[in-house]
């Protein structure tokens, strides 16, 4: 019951955020967005034809009315149809979201898991060559552009100048093998770049935890290093780590996939979004914006619940 109330309160507190996001994107994408009037008209339109089209598109309505229309679309979860393909926005999302998730998950999981492991190793051997090597590797990962990493791995695995093992671009999830063949190069690029940032961040968190008084207490009671790490350091480090992971979810699903999907031609949300940006397909853009904002609210909620699980000092009130 307490948890339910808490979740409800958190979701209500997310409303101003969603309103803000939609307002800003409405102003930028719709109100000042591309004017479709002339695309839909023939040559040399008359003033009446222009007015009619504008009225059809709703351009003659006042700002508030149009924004309220958008909000109504959000509440009813009905964003209409794509302007370029006429497919329902909801069915487009239903088709593409699973693809994006399938694309993002391996990189996301490996990037964080390996990041934590490398950070633990580096922190444990703080100051020694192992640490320096790992952190040097992280610095390289941080300094390489995602795009360069993508191209680099593509050359290495998919071109005739490299190993020529994997498909150059495209997507196929029909069999697990095909999935692995297509997901490997994007995943490697993601992991390589994400590891740079993650390892650095996680190491900083862990090192900070290592210098806490209670770690010294544990040592003073004879706790061996492995247990010290596992019990006294890792669990306490989970709060900043969990926060980072949670808040990277919305970013990865939309922005991270956008580059990967448009580069490799993978039919996910990112690709759809990118195409919508290029063609000015407003219904899709409006839906994607809301989707992201809602994901952020959910991420916030999940992060809070994780705090509660990890840290007894945090109460749900």
């Amino acid at each position: 019951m307490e948890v339910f109330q808490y979740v409800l309160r958190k979701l209500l507190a997310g409303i101003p955020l969603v309103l803000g996001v939609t307002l800003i994107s409405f102003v930028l994408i719709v109100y000042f967005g591309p004017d479709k009037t002339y695309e839909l008209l023939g040559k040399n339109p008359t003033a009446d034809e222009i007015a009619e089209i504008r009225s059809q598109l709703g351009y003659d309505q006042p700002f508030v009315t149009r924004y309220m229309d958008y909000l109504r679309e959000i509440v009813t979860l009905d964003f209409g149809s794509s302007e370029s393909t006429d497919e329902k926005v909801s069915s487009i999302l239903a088709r593409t979201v699973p693809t994006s998730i399938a694309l993002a998950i391996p990189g996301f999981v490996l990037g964080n898991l390996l990041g934590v492991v490398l950070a633990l190793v580096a922190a444990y051997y703080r100051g020694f060559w192992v640490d320096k090597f790992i952190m040097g590797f992280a610095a390289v990962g941080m300094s390489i552009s995602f795009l360069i990493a993508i191209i680099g791995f593509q050359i290495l695995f998919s071109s005739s100048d490299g190993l020529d093992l994997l498909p150059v671009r495209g997507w196929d999830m029909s069999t697990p093998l095909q999935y692995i063949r297509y997901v490997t190069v994007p995943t490697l690029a993601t992991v390589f770049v994400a590891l740079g940032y993650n390892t650095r961040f996680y190491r900083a968190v862990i090192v900070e935890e290592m210098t806490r008084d209670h770690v010294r207490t544990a040592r003073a009671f004879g706790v061996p290093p492995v247990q010290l790490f596992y019990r006294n350091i890792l669990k306490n480090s989970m709060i900043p780590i969990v926060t980072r992971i949670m808040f990277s979810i919305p970013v990865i699903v939309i922005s991270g996939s956008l580059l990967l999907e448009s580069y490799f031609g993978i039919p996910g949300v990112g690709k759809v979004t990118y195409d919508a940006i290029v063609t000015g397909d407003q219904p899709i853009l409006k839906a994607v914006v809301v989707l992201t904002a809602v994901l952020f609210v959910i991420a916030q909620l999940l992060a809070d619940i994780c705090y509660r699980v990890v840290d007894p000092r945090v109460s749900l009130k």
Partner: protein
Amino acid sequence: MASTENNALLSVRDLVVEFETDQGVLRAVDGVSFDIHPGETLGLVGESGCGKTVTGLSMLGLVPSPPGRIASGSIMFDGSDLVSMDETGLREIRGSQISMIFQEPMTALNPVFRIGSQMRDVLQRHQKLTRRQAHSTAIEMLAKVGIPEPAGRVDDYPHQLSGGMRQRVMIAMALSCGPKLLVADEPTTALDVTTQAQVLEQVVRLQKEFGMAMILITHDLGVVAETCQQAVVMYCGRIVERSSIEALFASPRHPYTAGLLASIPRVTDERQEVLPVIPGMVPDLLHLPQGCAFAERCSRVRDRCRQKSPRLELLQSTQTSVACYEPNA
């Protein structure tokens, strides 16, 4: 004291601890020697930076390294030298033979585990108890240190307890394996005066009950007077005076000890207009003067004090050792 090495529980000889810093090597502890016998309480007294905490940490091999390291000396405990002992050996001793409690009760316990779990951990490791046994021992210990309703409190998280209660939990944890020596680093400094009185009382009572020795590290001469039998006064990493409590307070021999005792305001005395002071300030450990570190602030300084620092020597016909060329009579 130093001569009765045979029956000493712990004897420290010429301990030197150094820290690597940006500006060179800092000698935090410089040639410290003392003994402690079973059941005895030794006060390690001095102002901040005098090396008393580092000395305490050395007893358990806990000097943070890097940047710190024990450069030389020995710490004999139960026939073995803790300085040359490896980490595995030290882990066996920590918390079971020698325990330590710290100044900050707020941060010394892990905030994300219940106190019972933290106590069980220690008991299961050192005493090889089952979980159930360890749990009941933990409750027993909590009751011993005066925590009301220990069976309920054992499932609390540290943040649910007050500072005084947390320090009691630390003490319960430290004593749970029946150590022979307790190193208490400013255990009551962070506590209020009424809580301090409660906790000190408890510690002294338990010490008698368990028959263990204690090293009490503190800056508070009042606390030393009330709890210790022996005292070591440190200044700039060195021992300046080592004696029994009675002798120390009745006739301090080193000018620093005498100055320190004179300069504390007291509740009992008639109000003085001006407190006697030790002029000047503690020198920078990285730029210690050549001779006696206290020379600059000393009223009886002689030329030779500035050339070579005096060794700690037993005064004739007393039980007091002092490192001064011109000790008080």
